[in-house]
């Protein structure tokens, strides 16, 4: 089982690297967008990392619910791994959005609906990880983290709708409107980069799962050593 997982990690990792290299090459060769110039190409990363982060959060929710139902720790490992990776990709989303805002609007942060929602989600998932750190006993940690994960996930759509409602009353800058048409071949590259990002996320999650396995073994050995 472990060799299989390691092999998958190597293969997926290599494939992701190749795909990313190809994508970056293609993106660099594209002409600049009319209204916004070269910076518009950041969308090729900004959108895929967001989509990957969202997928990771759905995986995390599913894993949390499955843990509560089955009490099998492999689901807990999946929940923490996908939340951590999702957190990293969400951070990438925030950073790319910030860079974009700086170039276009001259400010490092504009309270755009999607970016603000992303920030709140980032806080929620950081909270999940800090909660885990505060609980030592593994079963309690897994159970409580799973419960918080459910609360957090339910909040995500509510947060998005609230901020959108806020923005309709207090309009502000909106990023990445689909004003200019998005040429077909650009859409293709976006899709390919989406794919590359998902693969990268999968590799990172698998690596994290491997680490989590080792950590659990150490924990239980330590407990055994101290108990007697």
């Amino acid at each position, binding site marked *: 089982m472990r060799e299989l997982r390691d092999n998958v990690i190597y293969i997926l990792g290599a494939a992701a690297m190749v795909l990313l290299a190809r994508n970056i090459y293609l993106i660099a060769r594209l002409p600049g967008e009319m209204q916004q110039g070269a910076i518009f190409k950041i969308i090729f990363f900004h959108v895929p990392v967001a989509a990957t982060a969202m997928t990771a959060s759905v995986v995390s929710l599913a894993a949390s619910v499955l843990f509560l139902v089955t009490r099998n720790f492999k689901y807990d490992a999946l929940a923490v791994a996908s939340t951590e990776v999702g957190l990293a990709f969400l951070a990438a989303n925030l950073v790319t959005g910030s860079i974009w805002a700086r170039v276009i609007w001259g400010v490092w942060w504009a309270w755009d609906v999607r970016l603000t929602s992303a920030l709140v989600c980032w806080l929620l998932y950081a909270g999940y990880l800090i909660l885990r750190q505060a609980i030592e006993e593994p079963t309690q940690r897994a159970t409580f983290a799973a419960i918080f994960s459910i609360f957090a996930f339910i909040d995500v759509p509510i947060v998005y709708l609230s901020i959108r409602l806020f923005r309709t009353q207090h309009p502000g800058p909106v990023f990445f409107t689909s004003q200019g048409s998005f040429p077909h071949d650009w859409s293709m590259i976006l899709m390919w980069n989406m794919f590359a990002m998902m693969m990268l996320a999968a590799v990172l999650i698998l690596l994290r799962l491997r680490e989590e396995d080792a950590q659990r073994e150490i924990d239980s050995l330590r407990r055994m050593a101290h108990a*007697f």
Partner: protein
Amino acid sequence: MSAVAVEGVWKFYGDFPALRDVRLEAGAGSCLALIGRNGAGKTTLLRIMAGFSRPGRGQVRIFGNSPRETATRRQMGFIGHGIAVYDELSALENLTLFGRLYGLAEPRRSALEWLERTGLERVRDGLVREFSRGMRQRLAVARAFLHNPGVLLLDEPFTALDDRAIAVLQRLLAEALAAGKTIVMSTHQLREALELASHVALLNRGQVAFHGPCTPEMAADPGLVYARYGEGG
């Protein structure tokens, strides 16, 4: 059907097994003394029996039902390490509160009765915060017995009791046994426990090393069970 049945219980903390395939039984009217070294798993086992935590595998049955069911909990009394009464309330208020929670028909009357039986009737309106140690312990005992439970689960009940409290508890336990109640009691104080116990179980590293009736020689020499079935000295 036994009053208390532990059926193949395992408890894991992470991957570490604190309890391993524990099988025990206590028939109605019996008193099971649960003995073992520190860290053997006595408190863990008792808390699972009381329904405070979930076993990883296996199950506990109290009168044939899960200890988590509401009807079963009405039949159970528990004394743990803490006295489980509120410092900011008076003795009477505490017992009346628990009387109501346990659905007693006349909570206040039962509370007054049990204050008398534990010798606390004169301080009934005093706040628990101001009680002496022995008084607090007697109140804890009153709380556990208040609703006349069929099964009593006691975690080291004699530890750190003063003499008066020990006497009260022994008397109440003997009365309960005579009335057909079931007692499971973990203890380090073998002498007091083995006077009352009809059965003994020795827990060692989360496993049952011995489970059987309490013989007169065990009651006479409390260290016997450890010596014969335990590990080392």
